[in-house]
């Protein structure tokens, strides 16, 4: 593709601001600040997640004027989907959806479709940059239903699947839950809830025996099963076609950002563009973890990783 396009600074700020506010809302102890953030949340032009329902309903009346998503960036929660989405969404040929993530609670076609831009907006961008796409970045793996919902939205949709070292992802998932449920955990209902190491040991035992694991508010079934990527990836390949799936290894993306992001742009057929670094705003809070439990987790995941390497024909050296 010969055309070269340039990232707009205010687009990057918009993306960063959406995550920043979401984080502040969960971390703030001030009711006033929370109320102000909630008020601002009603009128954003781009959301990180949780679009207010009235915004969706307001867009419901012109669904036929809206386009279907061309791509879906996915993976398990805390795999780097938010960071990578900031690089994809900053591309001038990508028309922003209303929200980075589709709701994983509100399963209705209008709710999904209303998030995407109007044909007119897309056409305008196409005229300006030579290409126009839209999509979403919902990290729904390992849940399977979103695969079928996306297939319905667009059976030819392209998927970018980000896979992160399972041990790192699991730890990050726990830390993220701590941030989101920090205040909740002070409630007497949580007084016997095991800490990280205990929880992981219980889950390692349970998952092998096909048990459920801990179902907490953020990611409703087991920390460990979220890091076993093979089964959901296999289903995506079956339903959406292997040729429509582009795999990104998270560590590779964190280190060789420009190279990896350009690979994604090529896969989506986007015009050449030099990505602008995005502030890392979606990191998990710090948390001390022993080497011992890390080793136990690494041994636990090893056989699952080997099956994954075989499935994708690549060794990620996790």
């Amino acid at each position, binding site marked *: 593709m010969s055309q070269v396009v340039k990232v707009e600074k205010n687009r990057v700020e918009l993306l960063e601001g959406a995550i920043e506010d979401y984080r502040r809302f969960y971390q703030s102890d001030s009711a006033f600040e929370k109320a102000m953030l909630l008020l601002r949340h009603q009128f954003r032009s781009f959301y990180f997640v949780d679009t207010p329902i009235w915004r969706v309903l307001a867009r419901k009346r012109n669904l036929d004027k809206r386009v279907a998503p061309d791509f879906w960036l996915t993976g398990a929660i805390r795999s780097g989907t938010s960071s990578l989405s900031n690089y994809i969404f900053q591309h001038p040929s990508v028309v922003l959806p209303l929200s980075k993530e589709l709701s994983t609670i509100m399963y209705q076609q209008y709710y999904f479709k209303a998030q995407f831009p109007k044909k007119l907006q897309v056409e305008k961008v196409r005229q300006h940059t030579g290409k126009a796409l839209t999509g979403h970045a919902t990290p729904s793996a390992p849940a399977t239903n979103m695969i079928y919902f996306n297939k*319905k939205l667009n059976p030819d949709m392209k998927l970018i699947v980000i896979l992160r070292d399972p041990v790192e992802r699991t730890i990050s998932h726990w830390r993220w839950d701590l941030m989101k449920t920090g205040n909740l955990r002070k409630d007497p209902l949580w007084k016997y809830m095991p800490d990280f190491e205990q929880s992981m040991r219980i889950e390692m035992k349970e998952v092998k025996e096909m*048990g459920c694991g801990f179902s*907490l508010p953020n990611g409703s079934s087991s920390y460990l099963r979220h890091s076993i990527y093979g089964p959901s990836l296999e289903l995506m390949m079956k339903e959406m076609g292997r040729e429509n799936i582009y795999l990104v290894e998270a560590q590779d993306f964190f280190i060789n950002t420009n190279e990896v992001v350009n690979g994604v742009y090529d896969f989506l057929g986007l015009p050449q563009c030099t990505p602008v670094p995005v502030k890392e705003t979606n990191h998990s809070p710090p948390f001390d973890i022993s080497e011992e439990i890390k080793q136990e987790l690494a041994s636990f995941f090893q056989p699952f990783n080997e099956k994954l390497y075989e499935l994708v024909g690549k060794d990620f050296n996790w």
Partner: protein
Amino acid sequence: MNKQAQTQVKRKTDQPLNADLYKIALLENSVRDFLDSHDVHASASIFQKLKPKPYHFVYPSVWQIALRNLLPHEAMTPDFACTGAEQSLDDLLAHYVMQHPCVALPLSKNLSLIPVYKEKFIKAQLASKKQGEKISRRFGLAKSGFFSSIQPSTSWIYWLKSLNPNMRIVLCLRNPVDRVLDHWAWNKMLASEIMKDPIYDELPGLSATLKMEMDQTPECGNGMNFFIGVGATGYLRHSIYLPFIKELHNVFGSDSVMIVDANELKENHTEVIQKVYGFLSLPEYIPQKMENIGNPPERFRNLHDEQEVRRDLLDFFKPYNEQLYAYLETDFKWEAS
């Protein structure tokens, strides 16, 4: 209920007492109301859901919980939990236990899941001390229970412990194949309106979903269940009982956990329920027969697919069942039924 069929309760003093007919009628009507609400126009269904009731079979109105939360409502500490996986007949078990005159009724058999992760919201749905005192005065003893279907969620084991670390647990286990098929049909019934939406067009049917889960579950993949049950865990995983039981034993001790075979409960309810009453230290009482409750109506089933997948499911669950039999030293003979 026929007055002649009134059941007798015996106090420790051997003085016979009538069963609480009002309560039994309340339990029976709650199920009827719930099933009716899925047979009527959507707006009427919303009305049913918002209607204030002293007892709901499934999820009470949020406003009722909020009100109980605002007004003085000192909850009794739950003495026990009666639970199981979705469609394990734990509903039937729960209503037999609730029917006992000494058991104070919670607001609902299945607690509302919306604000569930805080103790005060759970307690707002449990029986109050005031109810307990009234029952105590009348029958000499009052107990409170927790009745939601929480299996296989590990988190819930620890949340239960927070409610009362010394509680007794009665767990209902049902033939895994029957449970899976009813779980599917129940989900279909609850979501029948929602699933008319075109976004569900690509979702596989019963047999394809369960075959997909049979491939995915041993590889530790997730399943397909949603709307009811423990989210994104899969229909099949809800029928693999051993990991949950082991964790229950680990947290509460095996002496505090009683296992009830759902088949036996259905066929021989008086004997089974009296054992449960004994385990929960409830005074002797002959339970009034209750119809099987919470079973999905026929029209939500897919008999053709059920037939097709039943054999495969039996084979799938066989090794898990054998492990369970060995651990509990009980053969439930689910393969034969």
